[in-house]
């Protein structure tokens, strides 16, 4: 049995067995490998960093080099049971367009985000007056890839605007998770460090 990083484990739990899955921004393929071996998923990965792609392929994972901002248009409608975008949407150029594309190519979409509304983030900005640095957001403002950070409320608002239905939410704070059917409680926007959304349209 492979052990997974906590947030990836929670994502994997949302995926039904024997599904066709694409992981956008799959990194070194940790989640794909798990889904392939433990959930019998038919997997495909898209990763912008060629070195990481090569690593995935050398592990026998089906991964191609590509850019979420440019290449999602390639895939036919509803060609995957699940489209996973883990901790990546905040690093894309056009999150709204991407979310629309994800729901076009996938029957279900799983998106995880670092919550910029988390109280420690708010406190950093309020007290120090500086861009927050936390365990999830650990780069300086000038080095970070996260150009479109958002809070849980921001994200659920965008889903509303796009008429996307959030079926389930899992929030994480100091390694404890909470599950919500549909959107999370308002207070999660302060107490959760990350959130995972299962979206269906």
């Amino acid at each position, binding site marked *: 049995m492979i052990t997974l990083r906590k947030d990836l484990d929670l994502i994997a739990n949302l995926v039904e067995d024997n599904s066709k899955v694409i992981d956008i921004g799959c990194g070194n393929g940790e989640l794909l490998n798990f889904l392939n071996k433990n959930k019998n998923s*038919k997997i*495909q990965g898209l990763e912008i960093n*060629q070195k990481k*792609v*090569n690593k*995935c*392929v*050398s*592990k*026998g*994972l*089906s*991964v*191609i*080099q*590509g850019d979420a901002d440019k*290449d999602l248009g*390639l*895939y*036919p409608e509803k*060609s995957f049971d699940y489209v996973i975008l883990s901790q990546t949407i905040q690093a894309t150029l056009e999150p709204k367009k991407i979310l629309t594309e994800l729901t076009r190519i996938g029957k279900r979409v799983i998106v995880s985000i670092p919550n910029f509304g988390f109280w420690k983030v708010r406190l950093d900005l309020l007290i120090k007056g500086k861009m927050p640095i936390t365990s999830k957001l650990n780069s300086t403002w000038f080095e970070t890839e996260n150009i479109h950070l958002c809070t849980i409320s921001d994200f659920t608002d965008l889903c509303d605007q796009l008429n996307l239905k959030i079926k389930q939410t899992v929030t994480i704070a100091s390694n404890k998770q909470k599950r919500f059917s549909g959107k999370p409680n308002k207070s999660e926007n302060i107490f959760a460090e990350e959130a995972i959304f299962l979206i269906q349209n």
Partner: protein
Amino acid sequence: MNEEHKKNDCLFYNDPESLLLESGQIINGHDIAYKTYGTLNSKKDNAILICHALSGDQYVASLHPITKKEGWWERMVGKDKPIDTSRFFVICINVLGGCMGSTGPASINPETNKVFAVNFPIITIADMVKAQVRLIDNLGIEELVSVIGGSMGGMQALEWAASYPERLKSAIPIATSSRHTAQNIAFHELGRQAIMADINWNAGNYKDQNTNPSKGLSIARMTAHVTYLSEASLTKKFGRKLQDKTDLGFGFDADFQIESYLRHQGHTFVDRFDANSYLYITRAMDYFDLEKTHKKSLTEIYANSNLKFLIVSFTGDWLYPTSENLMIVRALSAGGVDVSFVEIESDKGHDAFLLDEPEFDVCLDGFLKSL
């Protein structure tokens, strides 16, 4: 010639059936020369076909009978190597139109008892593959674990996957393209013109006269060889270094090492390659255009194929650059096909697929193990 190959454990398949070519012409019976490595298991489900490139042949992992050099992909094929012969039964076939035992323009036309020369019909990549399928049938193999090839070998792999997807578990086209570009055709035309401009070519009938258009073929090889390298690799290997000289010779001898190297490449090539074969095979590559042959878009050709693809390109390859390989990757993705794609960092040019690139080995090894 074929007796020579037989001495080298080369196998022959005398295909008695007529072969209808893409051009509409027919070859009435032909020979296919091939080599195998490893053992075919009782279920006959462990075979891999390796397709060779323009100047390659069936001697993929064994001593070449003419050059006495090791096989052209010896570092990839063998026991405990990525294409592991203790697991796989590896087949490598000299292409139809080739000159290492398979029927080609240098063979005797049984109808006239004369060398075919330019009376040999024009063949295409699809025709080469059709002949390979016949051999695979004859060996009783229903499904290949993979068909693997670089450059023209990659074109054959793409054609296999397009026309015979049910016969494959996977395909690995390397440093290749779904159609020849204007630049690709241009370089081949240079080579062909060099051969045909050689007075010894004699409209293709040089065998009868016991001559050989060696100069022309050698220039063709020199031109082509430059396209397989890169500026970086040429600079690194030769720079402006002089050959056995301390100063310029003020003449037209090979002053520079690069000149001497190219001349050597040209000379050794004519010993092992038939000039007419070179014309026919470059033509087959120029005619290669999957979308035209299959009258469908690349995406439609492969849509919903059940086989796995691994596409490989090299950063320093300007002959079949990453962009050409990516076109195939995109078409496969759009068709919902299981595809992996790696681009290997290398400054060795197109030839990188034949050379020492450890990251490439690891990717190929991982992919084959996942099958």
